[in-house]
Structures are given as structure tokens and as C-alpha cells.
């Protein structure tokens, strides 16, 4: 698979994930918010809460798209990509922290069922995993960029 075709596939996947996200947040999430219905917290509050958590997710998709574009331009190992991966890591960590803290506040207001707690735990786990993987990748890409730079300037 050439770099260009890999880049195009990645871009397609990222756009597809974005479209799925729009479908999820506009159609499925309002139904899912009903699971979080309680006496003290309205479903609409949960809906807005999770809607705000979509902002960092879409920011991650934008950075992922820029990384895919760099791959297509033969700039896979670049400090720019390493910087984008660090930002993805930060965004994922911020999103996980936001969901964790916000959910904890809601759960303190009213004792939830097991399913909402499980869903929140899964979301936080995924966010932290993405953050850790992205920061590790950022370090590797940065090292590779320096090695490639040295290699290019070795006559």
C-alpha cells in the first residue's frame, strides 16, 4: 500500500467516524440520555453534558486528519506530527477528566443505575487509553523525525 493510498484511506475513515459521531450525538445520544434519567437530574442535562464532551473528540479528528495529510505528503516522521499527537493526547485526557468529574458530580446528586456507571467507566477508560497511546506515539515520532533528519543529512 502506498503512502498516498494509506493517507486517503485514513482520511476516509476519519471522515466516516465524524459522520457517525454526528449521527450518534444527534440521534442516539438523546435516547441514551434517558438511561441517566433520575429524580434530580434531567435527561437534557446529561445530553448537554455529553454533547460538550464531543468538542475535544472532533478536535482529535481534525488533528488526525492533518496527520493523515502529512503521511500522504511523505512527512510521516515530522516534529509537526509529533506535536499533533501530543495535542491529541492532551485532548483525550481532558475529555476523560471532564466526563469523570462531571459524571461523579451527577452521580453524587442522585444514585444511578449500574448501566450509566458502566458506560461512564468505559468512556473514561477509552479516553485515558487514547491519551497514553498518543503521547507514546508522539515520543516515537519525534525520535524518528530526528533520526530521519540525520539520515537525510548524512552524505
Amino acid at each position: 500500500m502506498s503512502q498516498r493510498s494509506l493517507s486517503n484511506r485514513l482520511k476516509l475513515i476519519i471522515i466516516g467516524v465524524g459522520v457517525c459521531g454526528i449521527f450518534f450525538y444527534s440521534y442516539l445520544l438523546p435516547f441514551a440520555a434517558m438511561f441517566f434519567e433520575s429524580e434530580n437530574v434531567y435527561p437534557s442535562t446529561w445530553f448537554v453534558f455529553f454533547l460538550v464532551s464531543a468538542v475535544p473528540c472532533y478536535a482529535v479528528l481534525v488533528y488526525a486528519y492533518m496527520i493523515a495529510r502529512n503521511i500522504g505528503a511523505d512527512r510521516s516522521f515530522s516534529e509537526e506530527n509529533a506535536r499533533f499527537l501530543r495535542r491529541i493526547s492532551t485532548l483525550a485526557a481532558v475529555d476523560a477528566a471532564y466526563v469523570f468529574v462531571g459524571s461523579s458530580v451527577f452521580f453524587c446528586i442522585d444514585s444511578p443505575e449500574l448501566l450509566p456507571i458502566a458506560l461512564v467507566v468505559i468512556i473514561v477508560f477509552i479516553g485515558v487509553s487514547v491519551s497514553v497511546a498518543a503521547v507514546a506515539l508522539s515520543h516515537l515520532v519525534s525520535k524518528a523525525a530526528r533520526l530521519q533528519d540525520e539520515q537525510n543529512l548524512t552524505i
Partner: protein
Amino acid sequence: MEENIIFNIDVMLAKRKMSVTELSQRVGITISNISILKNGKAKAIKISTLAKLCEALDCQPGDILEYRPGD
């Protein structure tokens, strides 16, 4: 090669009455790489490349390499 090691290729090219293009063809490296050597942007040089340069210019490594102490 950092700024302290200078490649004096121009001097040897003038002595041997050789062009940069001819040198690049003899050594097997691109003209842009020869420019990188001349401009001091190179970070490293392979021993084999240095040997080919000396063979093409009929000189010793000391004839084309110069060390200048840093400021």
C-alpha cells in the same frame, strides 16, 4: 559535520579543472548533496563517500577537510 569542519571542495575542483556535475557523477551522489557538504549543513559523511571523493579528486582527506575552531 557541524560548523567547525569545512569541506574545501571548490579548491580541489579548481585544481583538477572539474565541474560539480562531473564530480557528482564520479562519486555517485547528487549535486544537492555536494551543496550540502559545501554549505556545512551535513551532519555526517560515510567513509565510503569520503573515499570516493578523494578518489575522484585525486587527493587526501586532509586536502578537502579543514577544522576551524568555534567562536
